[in-house]
């Protein structure tokens, strides 16, 4: 795996000399291609500032950052690096296909290529049904999905995503996470700032934890979350056999922390009882 993002002593300070606000204290970071990296931290910890610096939208006041070997605001990185900000879309009067056509033209794609990719992502992100509605009338989730479609249009090598799943329903989140996994498998470096810890845990290969603009922890998720405990998952035993197994474990010096009946995930329950309006089950409307 090659280095996608390299940051050395990167610092950002807002305000004047009288009342400086240190959004990022000097920070060193190296992220590789083919990985999904979660940037975690409470509000005001510097997540968005870090992403904006990497997107070339914020000039650092100290240190430097390179993406794919070039400055974040280089002309080539305009296409190779995609940024999905948390704020709403510009040009809200345009429909989803019009918006993607504009983005494609600004990225330098040919009309045919742009239209083909736009059609693919509109299908994939389930935005076809929006038709020619202006994007400013979209729900938050639809706007998020359109933002992601715009970010993916240039087939970037680095994806910088600020809260990519906030406002999405569970189906939308699942689609987005599947796409991000695919992009990482294809060799892209995906950096996502998020407050959804479960999603980060599910999808990210490594995490960067920021607090007060400082790097608190960084590493592979498996290493950071590892404990000295082990779990034995058993299926098909009755209560008596289970008590016998527990007694055997105690006899061998182990400690029984708890015995519980595992629950299904909430998402599985959601999928069982709710049906996505974007994906009606055949037969729902009495015609299919």
């Amino acid at each position, binding site marked *: 795996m090659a280095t996608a993002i390299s940051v050395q002593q990167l610092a950002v300070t807002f305000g004047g000399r009288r009342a400086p606000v240190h959004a990022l204290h000097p920070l060193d970071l190296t992220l590789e291609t083919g990985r999904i990296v979660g940037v975690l931290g409470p509000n005001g910890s510097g997540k968005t500032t870090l992403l904006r610096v990497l*997107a070339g939208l914020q000039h650092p006041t100290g240190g430097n950052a390179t993406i794919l070997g070039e400055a974040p605001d280089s002309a080539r990185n305009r296409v190779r690096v995609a*940024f999905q*900000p948390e704020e709403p879309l*510009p040009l*809200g009067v345009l429909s989803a296909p019009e918006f993607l*056509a*504009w983005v*494609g*033209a600004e990225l330098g794609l040919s009309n045919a290529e742009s239209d083909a990719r736009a059609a693919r992502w509109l299908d994939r992100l389930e935005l076809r049904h929006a038709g020619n509605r202006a994007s400013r009338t979209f729900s938050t989730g639809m706007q998020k999905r359109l933002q992601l479609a715009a970010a993916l249009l240039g087939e970037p090598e680095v994806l910088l995503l600020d809260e990519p799943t906030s406002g999405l329903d569970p189906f939308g989140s699942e689609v987005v996470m599947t796409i991000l996994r695919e992009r990482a498998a294809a060799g892209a470096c995906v950096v996502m700032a998020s407050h959804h810890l479960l999603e980060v845990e599910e999808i990210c290969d490594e995490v960067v934890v920021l607090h007060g603009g400082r790097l608190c922890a960084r590493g592979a998720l498996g290493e950071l979350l590892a404990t000295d405990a082990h779990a034995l998952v058993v299926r098909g035993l009755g209560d008596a056999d289970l008590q016998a197994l527990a007694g055997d474990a105690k006899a061998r010096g182990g400690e029984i922390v708890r015995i519980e009946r595992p629950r299904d995930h909430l998402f599985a329950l959601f999928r069982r009882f709710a049906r996505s309006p974007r994906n009606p089950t055949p037969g729902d409307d009495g015609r299919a």
Partner: protein
Amino acid sequence: MAARDLLAVTGRQCVRWAALPTLLAAAAGLGWLRAFPIRLGNEQAPAAASPALLLPIAVAMTVVVVAALRLWPGFSLRRPGKDLAERLHRGRLGGCGRATLGVLAAQFALTLPLTLLLPWLCGAPTAVRARVELATSTRPLLFADTPTLSFGLPSMELHELQLRPLAMLPRGTFQPTRVGVRVDDRALGTDATFAETRQLQVMPLPGDGARLELAWVEGTLPLVFAPGAVVVLGPPRHGMLGNGAIAALLLLLPTFVAMALATLCGRVAGLPTVLAVAAIALFVQLFGELGPSSPTMLALLRGHWLLAGDVFPAALASLGVGSVAMIAAMLLRPRPRR
């Protein structure tokens, strides 16, 4: 078909927003002129229709400017979508240049039919005739003590003479001043009589000649024939279509100045301030006689060739102001924000 470029996106949105208001304003202006026609004797006075016809132009300018400033987040600080807009347009103007071109294209599309059709509907001349302003080498005062003024005539076919002198206070009891007109010592049919300042008298000319002479006959009003007061008209030289197209182009300049000042202001201010600056810039240029809009409409309705006379210098001044503001906006980079 999707508009892909920012220029096309902005242009299309501006036309969508401004088409109906412009049409309604044009109908209102024409309706006003039909209801309250302005005439000089039995003749139509097309130049007097200028304020009513400036109304739809002003509406088109205002709406396209407001539409563009609201549409493109690069025109002001703290607008939703500004980050994505900045990433896709990394030029010195951050897309504001292309959006401004879209605004100008939209306004041209909206005002060209107006500048082509409205003069025709108001009875303006159907062709632009050759027009030469005469000046005398002596003091341009005509009265009993300086009873004649001479002017050299241009070497062209001479169709019509227009006299519009300034009148000074009467010396003694008021009596209109009568002026005899001679071309190469041949008197024209009747004398011209002036009872007030800037009074227009139109006289046919014999076709050719080398020297025009104005002679005081009687009256107590001293007349000053300053530059522009003596004009000879020749044969038709240009069609009104060309003049209408040039007028539509010249009328883009107030919009360009407003957009340039808005772009400059937007480097340090939010949308409300930027809208206020653009609106004030347009208002001052449209109704404060600064810039080419009023002289353009007057010259268009009088059938004057717009690339001659005093319209073009006013247009160049506006172009200069707008260009300086745009260059300043390029130099003033947006401040990093949180």
